[in-house]
């Protein structure tokens, strides 16, 4: 009985210890942020400029049919913001996680301190959320400056929705990463899941244009919900159904974090 309580205590996160893992990751990020700055912040904006302007010209007047009156750039910009959160969340949850288990191995040292595996996962995923929030704030500021988003309060809500979208990918992908014995699976993940999702989730055209079965699949994944939220906020569309989207993203985030804690403990406490 008491052994079960001890095991439970080791399986549940401590209320505050996880912060030190996030603090450690921040210390590392401070040293190397220049290297990832381009991919995390500037690349989505380059894509936006290229697609928005280039594809926008091609789509031309027909844009209004799908955008409900907005320009094509304004239509895809909030969706690309959600998509960049997916990319960033997935990127943070794959190689950096496995590296700290298999190559840098520092997670082996951390779970030998008072911290348990759940503390490590909670801290790591919290840091990923923070990094997505930082990138989202930058993105939102650009959208405000460009006049694509006009309400500062809505832009702030977009930062929240985008962060939740990033977490909805980062958490379950972390759970996947901690089970891996090599990084081979990550290539498949990006080619077969992450990249196609951008096309299935209403980024460039409405989800409703897809066959019904594919639509159903799209709504099971997090990105469609993130795109819908960010777009409604940016374009000032009605927010009915917004809580469904928030709930779906929260479910992925919480479920993913719990799975990561359970699977990471299984790996580290053998």
């Amino acid at each position: 009985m008491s052994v079960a309580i001890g095991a439970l205590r080791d399986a549940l996160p401590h209320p505050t210890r996880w912060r030190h893992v996030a603090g450690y990751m921040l210390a590392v990020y401070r040293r190397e942020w220049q290297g990832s700055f381009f991919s995390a912040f500037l690349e989505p904006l380059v894509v936006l400029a290229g697609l928005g302007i280039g594809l926008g010209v091609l789509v031309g007047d027909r844009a209004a049919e799908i955008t409900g009156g907005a320009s094509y750039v304004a239509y895809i910009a909030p969706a690309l913001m959600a998509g960049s959160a997916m990319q960033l969340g997935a990127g943070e949850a794959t190689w950096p996680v496995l590296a700290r288990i298999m190559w840098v191995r520092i997670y082996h040292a951390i779970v030998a301190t008072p911290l348990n595996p759940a503390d490590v996962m909670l801290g790591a995923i919290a840091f990923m959320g923070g990094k997505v929030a930082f990138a989202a704030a930058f993105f939102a500021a650009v959208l405000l400056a460009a006049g694509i988003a006009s309400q500062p309060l809505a832009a702030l809500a977009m930062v929240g929705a985008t962060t939740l979208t990033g977490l909805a990918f980062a958490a379950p992908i972390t759970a996947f990463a901690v089970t891996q014995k090599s990084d081979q699976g990550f290539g498949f993940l990006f080619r077969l899941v992450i990249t196609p999702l951008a096309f299935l989730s209403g980024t460039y055209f409405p989800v409703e244009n897809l066959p019904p079965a594919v639509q159903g699949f799209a709504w099971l994944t997090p990105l469609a919900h993130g795109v819908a939220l960010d777009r409604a906020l940016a374009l000032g569309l009605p927010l009915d159904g917004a809580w469904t989207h928030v709930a779906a993203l929260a479910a992925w985030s919480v479920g993913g974090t719990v799975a990561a804690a359970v699977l990471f403990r299984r790996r580290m406490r053998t």
Partner: protein
Amino acid sequence: MSSAGATPETLIRARGLTKAFGARTAVAGIDFEVRDGEFFGFLGPNGAGKTTTMRMIAGVSPRSGGDLQILGRDPDLDGAAIRAQLGVVHQQETLDQELSVRENLLVFGRFFGMDRATIAERADELLELFQLSDRAGDQVEPLSGGMKRRLSIARSLIAGPRILMLDEPTTGLDPQARHLLWDLLQRLKRTGTTIVLTTHYMDEAEQLCDRLVVMDDAKIVAEGSPRELIERHASREVLELRFPGGTELLDANKLAKVGDRYERLAERVIVGCENGEAAHARALAAGLSPESWLVRRSSLEDVFLRLTGRSLDE
């Protein structure tokens, strides 16, 4: 804490400690005790169960059976409280390669709930003690193996642990780096830190350990101080006879006449005896013709050979 003159407190106590991974038994019911202030060793070949035992003590691997008490607590119940008082150095490096030497210490202290000012003070003391002060601001990645190992040990000491756990601390280091590390560990022991180490190096165990257990095939096969083990399980001197063509055809009757006992390895015969020179003369008289021979004092290597019938490096 024990007072002077009293029996030293037992910090680690294992009874019938067992670990199974599926059908494979990695540790098969071992008993041992580690006392306060002691330098205690697990000696044995790779795969003997040393690292698994260390992981159970460190509270990161739940045992499959038996009793285990560390600092009066059960790791299955109070893992975090035990880990708060342990310093653990893994066999493979676990340092962050991108952070600086000093940052590695600063970050780690936070995991033990220390405040930043205390960590900074302690970090500078440890960098001084481990001769890393002049590299404090450098990244870890380009450091030599010996420096990384010293930093790993310094990091494990950041919270002032009661017990320092070292898994194969000098594996992969050059002789100079090994000797420097041995000196540092002996200095650390004099300050009262209890140290538990695993090693497959006989000379390391002989140099450092007050007491050790010899592990082979998941079990403890002997226990004592290095001197006691040698006296109990080995003769005074050893005669090594080399037969590069192999030893399997040598006549057992002839070999038995050379000394008190012998072990036949692939290309060597190890003879335990009182006097190696005299034993060599008997070997020649018996008609044995080794290509070369040498006489040395018995070591833990011979204890291991005697107990397991195998050499550690085979």
